[in-house]
């Protein structure tokens, strides 16, 4: 992840966001999203929510008022990201005048890349001018953000005014201790029709707001995401060079292909750790599944999970996996052509294009069309309605809260607006020049100054308008539409559930087990023992907790 001329976002939509989604796929061991959903419980629930902190009503949620400034060429299907083949020439100014009152705020966000200078930065100055207030960023390394966030939350005095929180970095006790003590409840400002005061915030889908609610109150400002997060990619250029046209319709086909392209003598291997791919093609649920008898089954108890483990172990056993799988970044190996097939976040696709096209014009990667391990229909479980949200530091100063919401309204401006354009591309003549095709070409200054930071605070619905890569919008939108066709909502989808504290770590051993079984260090029979341990360590009680939630709703 680095800055290179053509990697600057044409659209504000998430360049870097997708790289962590990529990491999500590549580095499952570190992240383990489902198990970190939330934690802790035991406090008295309020009237409007149940034991898991899930609201039973939706009165607190903002009204959804969608705005469309530009019609997409590839409309959203079942939650897929809409695609735009062209950039409109006339941009809409969605907010008439800078709404800020000249105040100064601090904001903490992650970044997967080189931090831009936070003082003397013309990009920030321009956005601040548009906001009418000053947002001073504290930019932390995305890969370390979990630690940074945990330490920051433990020092509430020094907490910035506005804090970005990726859902996979949520620490234990977040819902019960952190949120009510540290962050501002914004329900009274945004619920129902009150949100209409900020049209760009009202443009954020209800599901994202719901997911940003804790204990029946809105706390978070969402950064909504499409429902399809991951894909299995192959180096199209490499396969073409080998004269191979992939025809993969089941799990065994994929293993065969990976073995076929593996050639240790030229340092070319078929695969990296394919665990995420294994869960996709086997349709492994993110967390819970309703069994045939109506009882909840945890993911690790399902047949799909077992089959995915066996399949991934077969991948390793086939010898197609790169030997540096555990100590070299998957992306680097993919870039270098040492790994030909990789599961990664969908956003990694255009990131790689930005990264590689300048030095390797023939670079090409493609996703495999969705398939099931047994050759049947695949199941894509929907990702969270938003993977990142942000919170305002608790304050008694209502003016500051309203001012921050004013700023959020600017930052959340959707594709096709002046605001979106400035945040995505900076200032014309300073951060970009118009190329011959009318597309903005980033300047050298943009490379140092312009990094995606605002979108980690709040954003409009995701769009794909990366028209600078020929054919990309079409290919990715079509894949996204296709995959979304198979999308299913897992049980408890989109709910912000506060799991009791004592179960926070019982899922931990499975992360190691997934690695060990895949690598042949342990056998699939160890899974049974681990599941038994999990049950006795609180797994069954946890099931009871969720069963109760399920029955209630």
């Amino acid at each position: 992840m680095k800055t290179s001329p053509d990697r600057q976002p044409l659209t504000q939509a998430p360049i870097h966001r997708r790289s962590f989604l990529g990491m999500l796929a590549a580095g499952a061991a570190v992240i383990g999203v489902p198990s970190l959903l939330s934690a802790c419980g035991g406090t008295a629930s309020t009237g409007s929510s149940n034991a898991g902190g899930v609201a039973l009503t939706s009165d607190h949620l903002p009204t959804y008022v969608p705005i469309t400034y530009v019609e997409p060429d590839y409309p959203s299907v079942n939650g897929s990201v809409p695609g735009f083949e062209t950039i409109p020439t006339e941009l809409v100014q969605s907010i008439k005048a800078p709404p800020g009152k000249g105040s100064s705020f601090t904001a903490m966000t992650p970044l997967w890349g080189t931090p831009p200078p936070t003082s003397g930065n013309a990009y920030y100055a321009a956005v601040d001018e548009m906001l009418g207030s000053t947002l001073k960023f504290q930019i932390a390394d995305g890969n370390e953000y979990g630690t940074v966030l945990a330490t920051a939350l433990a020092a509430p005095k020094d907490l910035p005014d506005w804090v970005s929180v990726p859902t996979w970095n949520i620490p234990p006790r977040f819902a019960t201790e952190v949120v009510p003590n540290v962050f501002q409840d914004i329900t009274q400002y945004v619920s129902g029709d009150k949100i209409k005061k900020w049209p760009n915030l009202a443009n954020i889908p209800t599901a994202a707001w719901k997911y940003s609610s804790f204990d029946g109150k809105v706390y978070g400002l969402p950064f909504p995401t499409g429902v399809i997060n991951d894909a299995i990619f192959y180096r199209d250029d490499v396969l073409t060079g080998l004269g191979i046209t992939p025809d993969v319709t089941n799990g065994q086909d994929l293993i065969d292909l990976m073995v076929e392209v593996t050639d240790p003598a030229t340092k070319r291997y078929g695969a990296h750790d394919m665990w995420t791919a294994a869960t996709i093609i086997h349709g492994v649920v993110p967390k819970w599944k309703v069994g045939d008898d109506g009882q909840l089954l945890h993911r690790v108890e399902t047949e799909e999970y077992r089959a995915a483990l066996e399949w991934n172990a077969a991948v390793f056993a086939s010898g197609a996996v790169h030997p540096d799988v555990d100590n070299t970044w998957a992306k680097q190996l993919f870039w270098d052509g040492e790994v030909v097939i990789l599961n990664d976040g969908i956003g990694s696709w255009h990131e790689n294009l930005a990264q590689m096209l300048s030095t390797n014009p023939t670079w090409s990667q493609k996703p495999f069309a969705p398939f099931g391990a047994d050759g049947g229909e695949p199941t894509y479980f929907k990702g969270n309605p938003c993977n990142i949200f942000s919170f305002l530091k608790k304050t008694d100063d209502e003016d500051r809260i309203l001012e921050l919401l004013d700023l959020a309204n600017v930052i959340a401006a959707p594709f096709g607006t002046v605001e979106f354009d400035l945040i995505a591309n900076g200032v014309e003549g300073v951060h970009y020049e118009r190329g011959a095709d009318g597309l903005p070409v980033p300047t050298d200054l943009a490379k140092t100054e312009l990094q995606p930071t605002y979108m980690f605070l709040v954003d409009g619905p995701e769009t794909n308008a990366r028209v600078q890569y020929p054919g990309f919008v079409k290919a990715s939108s079509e894949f996204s539409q296709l995959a979304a066709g198979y999308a299913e909502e897992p049980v408890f989808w989109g709910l912000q559930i506060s799991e009791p504290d004592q179960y926070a770590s019982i899922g931990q051993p499975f992360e190691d087990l997934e690695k060990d079984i895949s690598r042949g260090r342990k056998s699939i029979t160890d899974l049974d023992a681990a599941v038994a341990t999990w049950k006795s360590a609180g797994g069954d009680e946890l099931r009871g907790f969720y069963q109760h939630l399920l029955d209630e709703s």
Partner: protein
Amino acid sequence: MSTTTEAKAPEPAGVAASTSSTRKPRPAVRKIKLSTRLKRDRSMLLMTLPAVLLLVVFAYIPMMGNVIAWQKFSPYTGFFFSPWVGWENFVRVFSNPQFLNAVENTLFITLFQIVFYFPVPIVLALLLNSVLSPRLKTSIQAIVYLPHFFSWVLVITIFQQMFGGAGLISQALRAAGREPLTIMSNPDTFLVLVTSQAIWKDAGWGIIIFLAALSTVDPSQYEAAAVDGAGKWRRMWHITLPALRPVIILLLILRLGDALTVGFEQLYLQRDAVGAARSEVIDTYVYFQGVQYGDWGFAAAAGLMKGVVSLALVLGANKLAHVFGEAGVYKKS
């Protein structure tokens, strides 16, 4: 935090020195009035002030902060308003399998290092001591001391580049058609890895004290033995090793006093690669429970237990060190 390991080992000797020397010259100071003494010593007192202030602020006040071990502490309610829970946190600590696992790992690593790390500096010191050319000797010393001054991040990175799956040796093995090394990520050989790293980093520095002890041996003893027909090995057995014995015992005791502190950064940095099952020690456990998971009272209790046991060991070891110090190396004069 980073200086503690360095500072720990030799302290009792230094402490012994300072306390004993303060005792000696105490003439009729008592008779002078406090105000006079204050006036006379004002500048001396002022000079200690900055250091004392720093210690009070960054060592003593945090020490008092350990009261949270008896609280259900939350940073949002603070030291003064968090509820008291008696010994609950300690009970949880001792009934927690992960904590016990961390204790077990800590002790295993310590034991393993005593057996395999500890003798290395002695052997190195003997080897160096037998080098006759002073120039060669100093050069080798300069080389073996060097890694002591590298950070753990650097040392582990060096190990990774040499022994990692993509490192120098694995590369050579792969080129020769062999399997690459897995030691950097294999939990089963983690003890070996940690100990080798410790040896590489600090064994050279560890020879200093042994060389000092060796230098106090009166060469006439060797000469007499040689005249009596004792060969090299016999001289080493009967003269050199007995001379080293008190130092060896002293350092062993000190190491025991430090048993619960095994390189925090070293283990923290490799926890991801190897997994917590083998690499979690008390210090890393405390960190994760507290800072990462927000169970502050519990983590403070675990840390405090470690501190108390260490203190007891250190004080006990210090007592023993005094005993051996009296009879041992440094009292030759």
